């Protein structure tokens, strides 16, 4: 298909301002060359739009009408108290944390004590040393290449996390991306996570805003994850940005043999979110469990797009996403599972469910199973439903008032997904976040 497309204002600005912005971003000559190549890739295709199948529900050309100035450094006077308040219930968890404010690592707000066996280096340091690895990453299959290119061109910082072989750590490592200040910006972060053989860790990426900050902004985040043989990673993402922010996240995951990758993504109170995750089975007998909760109200738009690539035999994948949609919110679930011809004995299951609290909310669910092997077990399901009236009556007949009955049923609905979070402190904090969200919105409307 060769369609001449007019570039939008945002696209032109993003491509044209590169020269002046890049000077202020970290990186030596090799990195600068990789950035320049990346902006070239971005300029060629522009932002993903609705005529690209994977983006038909989330037209970024329409969403990102304006290019915001790229965040190159943090000049806010954000304090540790601000960060803890911004983190909500998760702020009360005593765990090592690596904090970035407006895309830049803030050593003074971070505290990595307790993260034994884990080395965390700011990406800006790696870039300054000339380490350009990963900046050429693409994801043509799911149309994420343009965002990855934009990320590579403008990335300011992030966490490079190396977990030594055999490390076992109960405490979660928190990577906190904070938005702060009065100026709407495009904040670009990138994390690299390498989990060594046989190591077991929990890493949570938290995206929040300091209360009182601008409600506008754009976030482009990417995480590359590699699991060594027998490694086990519980990878949590929490985006509760409290604004009309456009939040774009790409996770690229590779699973080594007999490894276990458990991802959980919680999204609420974000203007437009696109959570994209690509997981590739590189070694046999690996297990993948991707789950999440999305809570939308008003005109919020939350898109979860997954691509699970069973490239080798004996892989197991589980996907469970639950959404609650109120007002005119829109939820999207696109779950692609490909079972390559060699990937015999694959066991894959997928479920996406939305609870519709208003007649104007919308849920679009698109499972895509491409199976080229013949000895596999794969299944998928999807539902969109209102609260069960019979159950509501049952609860009310026991004296529980309507608001409380609704909240109880909604909690039980999303609780099934939140239960997938193994770490107790994080699981309880997420349930509390969800309850706060319900109390502020969903339980009140009929």
């Amino acid at each position: 298909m060769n369609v001449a497309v007019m570039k939008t204002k945002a696209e032109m600005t993003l491509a044209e301002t590169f020269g002046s912005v890049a000077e202020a971003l970290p990186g030596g000559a090799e990195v600068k060359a990789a950035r320049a190549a990346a902006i070239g890739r971005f300029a060629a295709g522009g932002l993903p739009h609705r005529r690209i199948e994977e983006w038909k529900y989330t037209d970024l050309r329409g969403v990102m009408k304006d290019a915001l100035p790229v965040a190159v450094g943090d000049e806010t006077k954000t304090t540790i108290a601000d960060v803890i308040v911004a983190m909500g219930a998760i702020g009360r968890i005593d765990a090592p944390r690596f904090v970035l404010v407006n895309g830049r690592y803030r050593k003074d707000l971070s505290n990595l004590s307790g993260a034994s066996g884990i080395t965390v280096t700011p990406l800006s340091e790696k870039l300054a040393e000339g380490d350009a690895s990963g900046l050429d990453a693409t994801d043509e299959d799911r149309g994420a290449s343009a965002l990855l290119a934009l990320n590579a061109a403008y990335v300011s910082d992030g966490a490079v996390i190396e977990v030594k072989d055999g490390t076992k750590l109960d405490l979660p490592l928190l990577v906190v991306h904070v938005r702060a200040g009065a100026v709407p910006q495009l904040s670009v972060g990138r994390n690299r996570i390498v989990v060594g053989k046989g190591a077991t860790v929990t890493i949570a990426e938290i995206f929040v805003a300091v209360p009182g900050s601008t409600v506008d902004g754009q976030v482009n985040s990417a995480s590359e994850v590699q699991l060594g043989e027998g490694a086990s990673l519980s990878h949590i993402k929490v985006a509760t940005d409290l604004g009309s922010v456009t939040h774009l996240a790409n996770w690229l995951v590779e699973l080594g043999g007999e490894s276990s990758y458990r991802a959980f993504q919680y999204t609420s109170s974000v203007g437009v979110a696109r959570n994209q995750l690509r997981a590739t089975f590189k070694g046999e007998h690996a297990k993948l469990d991707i789950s999440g909760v999305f809570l939308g109200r008003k005109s919020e738009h939350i898109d979860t797009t997954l691509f699970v690539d069973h490239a080798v035999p004996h892989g197991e994948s589980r996907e469970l996403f639950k959404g609650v949609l109120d007002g005119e919110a829109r939820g999207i679930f696109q779950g692609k599972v490909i079972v390559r011809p060699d990937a015999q004995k694959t066991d894959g299951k997928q479920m996406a469910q939305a609870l519709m609290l208003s007649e104007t909310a919308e849920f679009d669910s698109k499972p895509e199973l491409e199976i080229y092997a013949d000895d596999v077990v794969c299944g998928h399901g999807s539902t969109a439903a209102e609260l069960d009236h019979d159950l509501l009556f049952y609860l009310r007949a026991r004296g529980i008032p309507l608001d409380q009955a609704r909240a109880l049923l909604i909690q039980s609905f999303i609780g099934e997904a939140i239960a997938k979070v193994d770490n107790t402190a994080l699981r309880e904090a997420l349930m509390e976040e969800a309850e706060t969200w319900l109390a502020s919105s969903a339980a009140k409307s009929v």
Partner: protein
Amino acid sequence: MLEIKNLHVKIADEDAEILKGIDLVVPKGEVHAIMGPNGSGKSTLAYVLAGREDYEVTDGDILWNGESILEMAPDERAAKGVFLAFQYPMEIPGVAGLTFLRTAANAVRKKRGQEELTTPGFMKLVKEKAAELNIDVEMLKRPVNVGFSGGEKKRSEILQMAMLEPSLCVLDETDSGLDIDALRIVSDGVNALRSPERAMLVITHYQRLLNHIVPDKVHVLAYGKIRKSGGKELALELEKSGYAEFQKDAA
């Protein structure tokens, strides 16, 4: 005292009347049984008492202690002491039994102006009541009624009833799906709640339950009306003669 006066009910959005003028009085301290053939309107009466919205009262009134409850929401009625033990108790996945019991008990206590139960106070009470009904407290840590047998679900209903301390108990076919042992446990649970302050309406198709929960009065409901009332011996007559004669009477 429960007073049902000339109660006419239809399903909302449908024309056909199900209850065609029920008159019934159940004084405090008494247990009345309502018997009748399938489709006579027994369950409809139970649901209307509890305030289910799928039904529409087209005429008449329901008074509990002299106050009309028709305009009250189901949870307000529960706070006023109305309790319906469901024929088919529902499963609530994701809500632990203990959470459910505590939320319900404290919701009605709050509305009744009583002090809410503390965690230890609640646990003590629930253990005591559960033991009387032969319910393992461990079972209450699981989601409400999920994976319970028919008998377990009915015992769980009676436990809820005991915890909420209602003053008007409506039991809708509580005997259905119970074996003899479960029937005895459930009946003992109900009998334990009999008191001079409590009125009970026991709805059943069979006489068998009334051997265990002996009623003060028996009413026959058929074709939307009370066709006959009498003492407990009426249940035995019905067991012999069946409901055929009332069907002929249909208006």
